[in-house]
């Protein structure tokens, strides 16, 4: 025993799952969605994703250097933000917009607050919303998915939510596309952002995260549940004006938001009760914005608004501690 021993406070073992490990597992869970985006939208999709991912990593490295902090890109969180941002952009996004989005996500969304763990809002969503408000034309120039076409013959098209919104505004009635043919949406044969198209692969990714215990059921279930209940109430009151809950679930960024954005650990509550409230709030706001707001899609706004409420939710949802008040629940007799 020549070398001095290590000493630390207990415990002396660790689960082995680290921050970088979590980030990597989330990236793996997104890979099917990434693959689908490339198959449906071709090379433009690949271009956007590469720019966003590399852009985010580069921005973070630059920030670390400027802030004289240890380089934090090895934890993969910047790469994850880049992929999530790309999945929130249309395939036709110009390169400068993708790059600007990356810079906004990392610099304004994250590093300005002190880096990973300190950002109050989901960085990718901050970037998406800033871009949406700043460049409404580019951000809503959707192309119809054309599987395996490499994206060379892209045809512009409206998203189902956009189409529904304009039809309802014009006629007060739901168009036919909002009442039937949902299986197409489930597989992703609809226009939208790169990561919004296929509910199927996003669901698979989400289930993978649940199975790996990276996320818990609380936020996805309460988010989806509240969308179903609230959208269902409207649908039952007037099925000709309000689309069915299923339409809400399968279109737009809902699945991406439910499994990958709302569950972002940094910006969601840490208590189980808080997560349920958070999910319900997201669901409520999403449906309200979709049905009554100015924008056809409301998932990003809903999640960002709930991000803002997270510290408050955490504060008021602390669990009753063990022995906090006298329990007697029977037990072994």
């Amino acid at each position, binding site marked *: 025993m020549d070398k001095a*021993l*290590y000493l630390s406070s*207990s415990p002396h073992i660790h*689960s082995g799952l680290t921050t970088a490990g979590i980030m990597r597992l989330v990236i793996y869970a997104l890979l099917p969605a990434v693959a689908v985006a490339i198959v449906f939208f071709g090379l433009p999709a690949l271009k956007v994703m590469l720019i966003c991912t590399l852009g985010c990593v580069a921005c973070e490295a630059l920030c670390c250097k400027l802030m004289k902090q240890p380089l934090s890109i090895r934890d993969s969180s910047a790469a994850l933000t880049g992929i999530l941002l790309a999945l929130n952009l249309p395939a036709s996004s110009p390169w400068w917009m993708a790059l600007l989005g990356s810079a906004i996500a990392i610099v304004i969304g994250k590093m300005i607050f002190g880096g990973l763990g300190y950002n109050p809002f989901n960085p990718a969503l901050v970037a998406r919303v800033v871009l949406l408000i700043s460049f409404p034309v580019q951000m809503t120039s959707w192309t119809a998915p054309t599987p395996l076409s490499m994206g060379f013959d892209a045809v512009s098209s409206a998203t189902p939510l956009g189409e529904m919104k304009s039809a309802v505004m014009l006629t007060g009635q739901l168009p036919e596309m909002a009442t039937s043919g949902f299986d197409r949406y489930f597989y992703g044969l609809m226009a939208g952002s790169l990561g919004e198209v296929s509910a199927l692969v996003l669901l698979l990714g989400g289930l993978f995260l649940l199975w790996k215990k990276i996320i*818990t059921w609380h936020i996805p279930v309460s988010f989806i549940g509240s969308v179903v209940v609230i959208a269902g109430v409207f649908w039952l009151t007037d099925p000709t004006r309000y689309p069915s809950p299923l339409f809400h679930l399968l279109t737009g960024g809902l699945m991406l938001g439910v499994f990958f954005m709302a569950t972002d650990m940094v910006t969601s509550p*840490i*208590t189980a009760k808080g997560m349920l409230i958070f999910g319900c709030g997201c669901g409520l706001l999403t449906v309200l914005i979709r049905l009554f707001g100015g924008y056809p899609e409301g998932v990003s706004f809903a999640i960002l608004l709930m991000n803002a409420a997270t510290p408050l939710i955490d504060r008021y949802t602390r669990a009753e501690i063990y022995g*906090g008040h006298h329990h007697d629940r029977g037990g*072994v007799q």
Partner: protein
Amino acid sequence: MRLPTFPGGIHPPDNKATTAAKAIVACPLPEELIVPMLQHIGAPAECCVTVGQHVAKGELIGTAVGPVSVPIHAPTSGEVSAIEPRLHPVGRYLPAVVIRPDGSDRWHDDLQGSDPNCLNPDELRQLLQQAGIVGLGGATFPTHIKLSPPPDRSIDTLIINGAECEPYLTGDHRLMLEEGPNIVDGILILRRILGVKRVIFGIENNKPDAIAAMSKLCAASPIKVQPLPVKYPQGAEKQLIEALTGRQVPSGKLPMDCGAIVQNVGTAAAVSAAIRQGRPLVERITTVTGPGIRTPQNLRVAIGTPLSHLIEQCGGLSDEPGKIILGGPMMGNAQMSLAVPVIRGTSGLLVLRRQDVSLAKPGPCIRCGRCVSVCPIHLQPTVIALCARLGLVEMADTYNALDCIECGCCTYNCPATLPLVQSIREIKGSVMEHKRKH
């Protein structure tokens, strides 16, 4: 049927297979035994022998000081070679009696057993105190104090802790297999002292052989053997009470405040030996294990045996050691030297190699909530640790820092590898100081 348990907790790899099937081996005596005067919670014992004096096994070498204290006895017969401060498992040099064994291991003549059924509870408690019996689960709280609830507390349940939820440790498991009758006898003595009807014996169901053996032995007795699911910290006092009775110990209070008293299986066996044979607590079962040990096994060790001797008995070190831990990996204390002796609370000696020690630098908290979901006390460890880093003593108190049992689940689970328990332990000290002042 769903087994009773508690909310929260973790499932670390138990690593018990290496020693669980091996019978307990008596560890030969070392060249010198280092017997510290502090081996329990409470006031240290006062040395009552002199250098050069010959002592017999079980002879008193340290007398109890005050009510919360127990005496210390010679672990073997031999000569007192020194009385001096020696490195203690707490990391400081504390008074110890050093004994050079004479090899005969002769018991002291005055020790005689008695029939517990002819003694009243007070006499039994006194015998336990004289025998130096303390909780052998690791906390080493004097047993006679724990068995003396104030008259205004009505105790209706005695809980026997056979959970052994710490990874790697199998000493209690082997004890239940090899000394079942003594354990049952000890439990019945404890029951007699407390005068309770209900006795629940909780055993984690990764020890089916122990459950079967104890069920058989307890079949004719009022002891109910209850299998428990495998989950850390199932054997923590509060969690065990919650699982077995459905009650919670009120915050800031003792188990007796919810009518329950918990005793470890090892303590029960020691109680039996102390009463029936009059033998004081001078040896214990210690699991010597871990990837750094060549042949891990369970040893019956004389108190005061240096760790280096235990390692020699287990084939030596397999590699350059990284961490030497007394107790289990979740709540044990890391040591800086192998010169430290085994004391009454030493349930295990775990040796990790250098490559087994995680050197990960703590990162920023990503608020994943993994510490919150596993906390068996339902605290928010990350918030309390943040208070500790920022020195927010009053806020830490409002987040119930003092209720933390330091089980380590949060730190085990923290992806940012933050030293949560250590931070909470720090701020607990500050909170207590703050409360004393105000």
